[in-house]
């Protein structure tokens, strides 16, 4: 029953999302950028270097994909709660049989499905590589997993920001600022002379954990990091939704 209730809202959300042009515009933009980048990396890979296909194409293409989603995720998640608030339909959901957590999970899942829809277009890259004899599928798989986990973290941030306001633009800008800010923490890592501080801050940044996956490394603490990152922002979103009762 718990999952069925989530399913009801996910179905409605996805119906809404694929009914509106936003998802198709974003998908088109995403495909254009990714295709263009892939083409360029392939061309560069033709020149004789010591770099393998993985180093020359896979690593940079997934790095770029991750970075592009720092821009796209805020645009996807901005409407989740902000629009409901504006249409005063949020009260409709909150009064219903669905718990706050179920609403958050449903919004999270539907945003994730939208992202999966967009990412699914990039499956054409491995196919093209396979046709030219590439065979290191382990790295491709772990890179996809890394991108997916990062994006889940971005969505969690986006949902929280969206729950704070009824203005979609504010929600997306806030999400973008938090995501970019967490990336810029890397600068602190490079700048500080304090080794311990550098390690701590490094652990806090998404790219550090993401890099492991692109290298094909499954590090248990990265899974814990993403799980706690997403959990933390779920908690904040939950508190934000409950704040009407304060």
């Amino acid at each position, binding site marked *: *029953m718990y999952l*069925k*209730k989530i399913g*009801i*809202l996910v179905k*409605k959300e996805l*119906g*809404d999302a694929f*009914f*509106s042009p936003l998802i198709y515009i974003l998908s088109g933009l995403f495909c254009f950028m990714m295709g263009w980048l892939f083409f360029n990396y392939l061309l560069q890979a033709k020149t004789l270097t010591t770099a393998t296909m993985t180093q020359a194409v896979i690593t940079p293409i997934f790095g770029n994909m991750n970075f592009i989603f720092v821009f796209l995720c805020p645009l996807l998640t901005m409407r989740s709660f902000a629009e409901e608030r504006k*249409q*005063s*339909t949020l*009260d*409709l*959901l*909150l*009064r*219903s*049989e*669905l718990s706050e957590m179920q609403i958050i999970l449903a919004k999270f899942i539907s945003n994730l499905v939208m992202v999966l829809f967009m990412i699914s277009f990039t499956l054409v890259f491995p196919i093209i590589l396979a046709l030219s004899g590439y065979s290191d599928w382990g790295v491709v798989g772990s890179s996809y997993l890394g991108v997916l986990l990062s994006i889940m973290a971005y969505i969690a941030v986006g949902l929280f920001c969206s729950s704070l306001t009824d203005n979609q633009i504010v929600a997306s800008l806030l999400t973008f600022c938090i995501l970019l800010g967490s990336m810029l923490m890397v600068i602190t890592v490079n700048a500080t002379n304090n080794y311990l501080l550098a390690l701590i801050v490094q652990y806090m940044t998404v790219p550090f954990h993401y890099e492991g996956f692109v290298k094909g490394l499954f590090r248990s603490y990265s899974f814990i990091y993403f799980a706690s990152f997403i959990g933390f922002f779920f908690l904040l979103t939950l508190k934000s939704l409950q704040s*009407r*009762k304060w």
Partner: protein
Amino acid sequence: MENNIAIDINKLSKSYPGRVALNEITFSVKKGSVHGFLGPNGAGKSTTMKILSGLIPESSGEFKVDGKVGFLPEHPPVYPNMTVEDYLQFVFDIYSPEKSNKKEAVADVMEKTGLSNVKERLIGNLSKGYQQRVGIAQALVHSPEIIILDEPTVGLDPVAIAEIRDLITKLKKDHTILFSTHQLHDVELLCSDITLINHGKIVVTGPLEKILEGLKTRMVIRARVGSFCEADVKKMMAQFKLESVEYKSEPDKKDITLKIVANANENSKKDIARFLTDDSIGLLEFGEEKLDLEEVFKQMVQ
């Protein structure tokens, strides 16, 4: 709780930082009644309704609601890019996910609210009156015993208002209805009980008839006479127990208009009329002003 009480509110208060929205309000809504909830803007009507529907918590006091509540907030909570039918099915699903009679319930409520002919249309494209109906349908679709409507007729054209009024009349057979409104005409036509609230306090509550009855103890007489002066006022005040006598002469006419507020029990209209027919005054017109709900509203809110 007594068996015939649907909503029982006891010393309910709600305060926001620096502002008291509701100050120990107490009233009850009888089962099967249509209860009008009146008050000027910002009196605390919406706050009360939000508390009753469980959207926001009360600061102190208590309330009991006997049965499921269907709630229509001030703005109908609709998704503009869903069709009417899909939307109502969605609301049914999230409010009673364990029930299986979705199709029938939705068809039934669309029939009741007159939405059957627009069920395929997007809600965003409907007129405001129809959107309001969708809002009411949304409150009904999970078959609650109690329906709370927050200003269901606000911002609608007269035809739409009449339609919503008919709809409420229809609903009154199966549901207890609490609704807030500014349309005093609606109240007189629909309600069996009313509660008047101002500045977060209950001004008056009870059966409509009794409240109107209570008003009839005061009588306002308007008359037009040939001449009138201060001496006549004194004379009248001495002869009858009057609250006030006002007179003013119209600049473009020779006549003088009088407004006499009297206690209906102790003064008979006849005697006052006889006094005014005196030669020196010369009665031209005589009439009693009917005190309706609008007057009550104005008087009590002041």
